[in-house]
């Protein structure tokens, strides 16, 4: 390898033209380069005349686009033409992404033609024009070799030159072109460039694009570009380079749409670069998206921490967490005297809860950083998670009801480990508490936690840690304040009764989960879940009845496992997402029509007022609002009187379009209520809108919303 360059250089030197006139082909070990011409009407003023450098790369080697990306260099051409002829700039074809380790370059592999337009200003007297080209290109695989060549070619003035017509025509047909009537702007916020391009052709609407910046040194090339479609508007966010070396006032982008359309858009900067520098210095959290008037300001960081802590404490009273917690607190009476053991147990429990919340939030942040359109509540958008939680809650409920004991289920290894180290037991109880709390955080606190996710990672993780701390707080308090232990009622036979009573909130949660699954995959899937839970209940009961040892015990164990596994495998195909046949019917109907970005644009164009309800089955706040404020007679009358079209966007299952629209509105969770009055910017209502709030927004219309 050490001598590779020398070897290549030697080869390359032998390839260099030695005589007075160069040919039109330069061949190196990696590239065959050819100067070609295209003049179908001859070289006369006003006729199309093209020159071009055709580069054929051997496999795995590439040359670069006008912006080479993280490394590399663009190909350069220097022309010598007779008087009356002038060469323009290279009409660069759309490039490809060329990743190298953590870096990203932009360039070409295989065969590429770099066309250059030629302007003929006065009639040429000779029979042919003599063209000379000096070109430099850097060809790279992982290693790079700078190469150059001198090319000469005579092009007939009067005869048509069409030998490479097909290549030129293809290159010109697929080049990225500016579309008439498009309007592109860019804004700088949160250390990223946010683009919005309106008026792209209908054929590319909703299609994903690979995006290439023509100007180097502005954006962080390999960072994920978040893009989305909203009606005819394509928007994208691209993080700025930490070591940005250019501050252009307009920023041309090449968009390579899946399916073959290559377009170009020049985005004019609507904000100034000095603002970008200030924002990156102060590390300020992003403000809500521009162009949206909000009646709600984003909560401050400290307020959010306080609310998360408080919310965590309240979560302890939710039907999913309360039973687990109360048993845990009652178990305190078992070792009421050993203060040290209680302390370590309490801390291990807290660690279990907080770390579980952090991992869940971290997973979500990582997925969002990877470009996934997810918000808080994402756990419940996967039918698999809903099924597993329903099974878990059923088992906990049956356990509380006394059908079987968990102790007998654990493999002996873990059971003895638990006995040996009670801290592990406490830690795992904490993990369990977080797991059972998670379906409750999404419905009750989805919107608030969703907002926290739009903050920088460190801040949003702190909010989630505070939530975990809140969940752990009551038990922590009970452990470290001896007085609480004394307030607790003495253990006695009543505890067994209390335990069985606690089974019922668990089963209530299962019913709710079955309903959510029903909305996601249909009634067949929900029925299948109930059947699987029935088998699970039978298995749990049987497990509790097994003889202590012997052949029958082993036989029972095997049959139980086969039964449960069989039931799951049978039902699994029915839990596939994407067949929400009944979903639309369940949530949309009567006054409400299904939402789509196109529908909003159409209605607005028609001068209609629009109210949109972003909702999800697993969002209890949404269900509450739907049955109270949104069902209020006065509100419905106001909607009718003001001719407001009601649209509902259902986010029960994953949906990139809805997630994208929520992000555009500056939210990442539901509920979100938006009112478009036809004149002003859309207006966001609060997450728990009162009747008065909706009436004010709908009735007064444009004249009042001046803020």
């Amino acid at each position, binding site marked *: 390898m050490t001598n590779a360059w020398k070897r290549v250089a030697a080869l390359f030197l032998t390839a260099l033209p030695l005589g007075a006139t160069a040919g039109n082909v330069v061949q190196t070990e990696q590239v065959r380069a050819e100067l070609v011409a295209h003049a179908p009407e001859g070289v006369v003023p006003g006729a199309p005349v093209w020159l071009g450098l055709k580069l054929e790369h051997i496999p795995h080697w590439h040359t670069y686009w006008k912006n080479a990306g993280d490394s590399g260099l663009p190909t350069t051409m220097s022309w010598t033409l007779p008087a009356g002829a002038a060469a323009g700039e290279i009409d660069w074809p759309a490039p490809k992404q060329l990743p190298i*380790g953590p870096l990203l370059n932009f360039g070409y592999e295989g065969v590429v033609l770099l066309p250059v337009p030629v302007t003929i200003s006065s009639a040429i007297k000779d029979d042919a024009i003599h063209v000379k080209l000096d070109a430099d290109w850097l060809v790279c695989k992982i290693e790079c070799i700078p190469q150059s060549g001198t090319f000469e070619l005579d092009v007939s003035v009067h005869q048509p030159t069409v030998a490479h017509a097909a290549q030129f025509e293809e290159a010109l047909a697929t080049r990225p072109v500016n579309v008439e009537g498009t309007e592109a702007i860019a804004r700088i916020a949160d250390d990223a460039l946010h683009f919005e391009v309106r008026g792209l052709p209908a054929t590319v609407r909703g299609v994903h694009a690979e995006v290439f910046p023509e100007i180097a040194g502005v954006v962080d090339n390999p960072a994920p570009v978040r893009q989305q479609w909203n009606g005819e508007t394509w928007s994208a966010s691209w993080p700025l380079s930490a070591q940005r070396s250019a501050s252009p006032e307009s920023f041309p982008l090449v968009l390579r749409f899946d399916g073959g359309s290559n377009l170009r858009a020049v985005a004019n900067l609507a904000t100034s670069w000095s603002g970008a520098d200030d924002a990156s210095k102060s590390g300020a959290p992003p403000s809500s998206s521009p162009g949206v008037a909000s009646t709600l300001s984003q909560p401050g960081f400290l307020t959010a921490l306080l609310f998360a802590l408080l919310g965590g404490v309240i979560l302890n009273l939710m039907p999913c967490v309360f039973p687990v917690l109360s048993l845990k607190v009652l178990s305190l009476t078992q070792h009421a005297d050993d203060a040290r053991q209680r302390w370590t147990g309490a801390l291990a429990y807290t660690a279990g809860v907080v770390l579980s919340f952090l991992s869940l939030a971290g997973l979500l942040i990582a997925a969002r950083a990877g470009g996934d359109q997810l918000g808080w509540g994402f756990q419940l958008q996967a039918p698999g998670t809903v099924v597993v939680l329903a099974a878990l809650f059923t088992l906990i409920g049956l356990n509380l009801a006394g059908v079987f004991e968990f102790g007998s289920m654990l493999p002996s290894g873990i059971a003895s480990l638990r006995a040996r180290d009670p801290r592990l037991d406490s830690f795992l109880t904490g993990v369990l508490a977080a797991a059972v709390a998670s379906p409750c955080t999404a419905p009750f606190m989805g919107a608030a936690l969703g907002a926290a996710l739009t903050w920088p990672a460190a801040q949003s993780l702190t909010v989630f840690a505070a939530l975990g701390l809140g969940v752990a707080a009551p038990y922590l308090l009970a452990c470290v304040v001896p007085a609480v232990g004394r307030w607790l009622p003495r253990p006695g036979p009543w505890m067994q009764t209390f335990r069985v009573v606690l089974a019922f909130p668990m089963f209530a949660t299962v019913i709710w989960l079955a309903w959510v699954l029903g909305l996601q995959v249909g009634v067949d899937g929900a029925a299948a879940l109930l059947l699987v839970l029935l088998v699970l209940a039978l298995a749990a009961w049987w497990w509790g009845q097994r003889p202590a040892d012997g052949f029958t015990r082993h036989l029972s164990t095997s049959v139980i496992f086969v039964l449960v596994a069989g039931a799951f495998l049978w039902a699994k195909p029915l839990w596939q997402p994407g067949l929400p046949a009944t979903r639309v019917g369940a949530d949309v109907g009567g006054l409400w029509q299904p939402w789509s970005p196109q529908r909003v644009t159409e209605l607005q164009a028609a001068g209609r007022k629009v109210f949109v309800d972003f909702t999800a089955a697993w969002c209890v706040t949404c269900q509450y609002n739907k049955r109270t404020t949104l069902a209020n007679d006065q509100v419905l009358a106001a909607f009718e009187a003001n001719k407001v079209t009601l649209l509902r966007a259902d986010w029960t299952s994953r949906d990139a379009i809805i997630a994208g629209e929520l992000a555009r509105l500056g939210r990442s969770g539901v509920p979100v209520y938006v009112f478009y009055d036809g004149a002003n910017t859309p207006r966001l209502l609060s997450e728990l809108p009162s009747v008065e709030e909706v009436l004010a927004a709908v009735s007064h219309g444009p004249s009042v919303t001046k803020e």
Partner: protein
Amino acid sequence: MKRSTSIFAITAAALLGAALVQASVSVGKAAPEFKVKDTSGQEQSLSAYKGKFVVLEWTNPECPFVQKHYDTSNMQSTQKAAEAKGAVWLTVSSSAPDQGDYRKPSELAAWLKEKGATPTATLMDDDGKLGQAYGARTTPHMYVIDPQGTLVYAGAIDSKATARKEDVKSATNYVTAALDEAMAGKPVTKSTSEPYGCSIKY
């Protein structure tokens, strides 16, 4: 329960991964601390040079762009001028050992010696952590850190992004300019530029 712990481990790993994706340092911010072995096996850290200007130079002897600046003695003279003014010069190799053009510490040291280079130390960043913390992309890629540990320049060695040796003479040397201005207590006029060269083989 065993399953829940393994899920836990996966999410913890994902969390760690997310933290590693954190953006690299910006000019005007504190340059990240590092602890990396040099070609003689000694541990080098940024904090050890606190109070001095530090130049970081990413290199790869196989790269034609590195050769451009070493064969014309441009890199060596930039280095000597910086060291004469009291700056510390750390040459860094971030090539992964499994890459074809990886040089062993002794080979790299010998190559630099043969070229007449006199870096304060040559760092073997085999795992690429130093390079990624600084956002180093190309060879060469240059950084200047002031005595307070603030990054004051990041980018190319000079203004002519080509592999042609004859361009060295007519190019503006950004590293020398940044050092001159910063040492005179002035803000650096050109504090960032687009680095040019071969990809670093992480």
